[in-house]
């Protein structure tokens, strides 16, 4: 009781200020450990040096010169300090080919971010919905279909089969694209028109714009959706996400970026002329990889929760079945499911890298694999750092959402 009294006397900050401050401190410490691990993983554990790769077993003058050029002859602590201090200033060093790593990544990141954010959010929405309905309709037709789908999604959609699936789907999709007369080379034409024109947005900028717009639309859509659910407005709940996405689409079109956005949606490939990569297809792959886990967790959680007393109470006081399911049971289950689904983050990320590789998209995956091929250590480290940052951001968003859902978790470690 004394604790309550003490906290009442102090002027109290809103819970999310202290919560975010605590989580940000956590994120900084975790990032520090992660970056240290990445550094030692790449510089000590990974058993190669790019110099030996190309110069063979001869450790003569040329080898020493190559080491010197790459800065690899300096003592380890010095390199470590350099790496960490560089990161503080946002400098990831330069690739062995000479260009700054930050530039390489800035070019590649928007495509990956767009696909990752949209894919995980859509996978979550789909998994949450199916899991919720699957548990509530257990034993009936829809419930059985969802149960089978759950086991299938968890067992037959590991990245490798998705990989084959997108490969097979790509052919028909290309034919469809040609059949309905979509231009196949608008991006090339547009790039040629834009290059050299002062003040024009570069393709990279447009991609960033689309990535950020899409993220904003998804966040706003989810917020409106949960508002609709809480206030029992089924129409608002159902239309929130599509409407927000449509609004961003109209906005992009009105800004005169329409064809290019469309182009980015169905093709963001390395050669820009092979017409292979397709973020839309990649999105499909990520949703397949990520929704199964969420759905199974959600279903199991709902199953465990539906025999609780408050469900009976809700029904007894005349709540509709839908209100009991969505506003009471689902809300209770969602927080632990979110926490659990974060642990599958590495799987989804690795799956995305495989799918991106298969579709030859101009994303992080292509940067990573070409860097591995050329043993370009600074670039590999840069990609790992960015993956870590994505992970930390993802974790912070998840933790915050959990704290919003469950007030008990606002004080302790979420």
């Amino acid at each position, binding site marked *: 009781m004394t604790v309550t009294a003490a906290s009442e006397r102090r002027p109290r900050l809103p819970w999310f200020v202290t919560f975010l401050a605590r989580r940000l401190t956590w994120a900084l410490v*975790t*990032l520090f450990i992660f970056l240290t691990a990445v550094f030692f*993983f*790449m510089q000590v554990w990974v058993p190669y040096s790019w110099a030996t790769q190309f110069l063979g077993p001869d450790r003569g003058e040329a080898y020493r010169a190559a080491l010197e050029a790459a800065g690899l002859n300096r003592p380890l602590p010095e390199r470590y300090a350099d790496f960490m201090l560089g990161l503080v200033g946002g400098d990831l060093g330069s690739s062995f080919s000479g260009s700054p790593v930050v530039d390489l990544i800035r070019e590649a990141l928007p495509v990956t971010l767009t696909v990752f954010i949209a894919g995980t959010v859509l996978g979550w929405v789909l998994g949450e919905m199916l899991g919720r309905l699957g548990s509530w309709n257990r034993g009936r037709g829809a419930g059985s279909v969802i149960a089978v789908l759950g086991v299938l999604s968890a067992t037959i959609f590991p990245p*490798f089969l998705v990989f084959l699936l997108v490969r097979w789907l790509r052919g028909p999709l290309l034919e469809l694209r040609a059949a309905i007369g979509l231009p196949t080379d608008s991006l090339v034409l547009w790039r040629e028109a834009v290059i050299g024109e002062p003040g024009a947005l570069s393709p990279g900028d447009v991609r960033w714009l689309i990535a950020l717009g899409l993220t904003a639309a998804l966040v706003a859509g989810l917020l409106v959706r949960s508002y609709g659910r809480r206030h029992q407005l089924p129409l608002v709940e159902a239309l929130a996400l599509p409407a927000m996405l449509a609004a961003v689409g109209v906005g992009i079109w009105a800004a005169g970026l329409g064809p290019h956005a469309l182009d980015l949606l169905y093709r963001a490939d390395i050669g820009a002329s092979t017409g292979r990569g397709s973020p839309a297809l990649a999105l499909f792959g990520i949703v397949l990889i990520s929704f199964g886990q969420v759905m199974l967790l959600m279903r199991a959680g709902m199953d*465990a929760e539906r025999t609780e007393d408050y469900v009976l109470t809700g029904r007894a006081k005349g709540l509709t079945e839908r209100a009991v399911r969505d506003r009471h049971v689902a809300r209770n289950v969602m927080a632990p499911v979110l926490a659990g689904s974060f642990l599958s983050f590495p*799987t989804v990320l*690795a799956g995305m890298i495989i799918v991106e590789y298969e579709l030859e998209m101009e994303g992080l995956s292509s940067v990573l694999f070409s860097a591995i091929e050329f043993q370009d250590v600074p670039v590999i480290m840069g990609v790992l750092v960015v*993956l870590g940052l994505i*992970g930390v951001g993802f974790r912070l968003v998840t933790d915050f959402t959990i704290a919003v859902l469950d007030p008990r978790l606002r004080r302790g470690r979420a």
Partner: protein
Amino acid sequence: MTAVPEQIRGSAPTVRRTGWRTLLNAKILFGIGILGLFLLLTVAQPLLSATVWADQPQVYDPRFGFDTGITHPSAPSLDHWLGTNSLGRDVFSMLIHATPPTLLIAIVAASSIAAVSLLAGSIAGYRRGWVDGFVSHLSDAMVLLPAMVAVFIVGIGRSNQEFGSLQVGLTFGVLYGLGPATATVRAATMTVAAHPFIEAARVAGGGGGWIITRHVLPHLYSHAAVQAMIGATGAVIADAFLSFRSAVGEDYGFGLMVYDGIVWSSLMAGIAPPPWWIMLAGAGAITLLAAAFYLIGVGLREALDPRSGGILG
């Protein structure tokens, strides 16, 4: 412990308490069945060579075999159950050849995940304090470094001699073990440590090491097993992509079979239909093996921990 009354002994499920019968639910049985098929495959080569393939065993050699009677690649037939690839190798024989190294990876990964997560997770969750601070931050950081990506970074471009099954399994197992697996086991340890029977053991004069090994660990095996199985799934997939991507080893992996089919179909695009049987054999084997480990993991979780419904991964 006989003197301790029943009500303070806690009720966390162990294998002994749950009983073997509930352990054998449909998912676990299905997973074990699939694994059994793969184990059969590992001994199939000498058996088949002695019986069905006895007339001409050299045709079915996974590395050098060639059937002169037909054109290659050929679709599945009575002679070649899964067809042949573009070089004339029997796909079924390749599949058999690729099975033992993949199983080895899964076993190495699973056991290292279990070992690492039990060690780090139980000590951190029981001792708390700075040890826990360090371990939980480390595992949070390791979740950010996907084990699969790490395996790609180390393994791509390396031959099987340099970076073989053992190394793939260990690399994946240690990284995954320190990451999601340790996080899960640590959380479970804290739940177990809150039970009254731990307090009772402490009052009885038990030291930390004794309590962890005798009273905490038995309750953690199920959590570690689930993580080990799910991790093994990842390791199998990582290896498949590695063998797909690097294509430098002499030995066939499942991924290399898929690669084989894809290369042939892009070479012959528009001329010949793609050899779906090669790709399907490889991808199907990967998927089945991964599914087996996943099913066993999920089944174990359902049998041993029905209440929490696998909420923590």
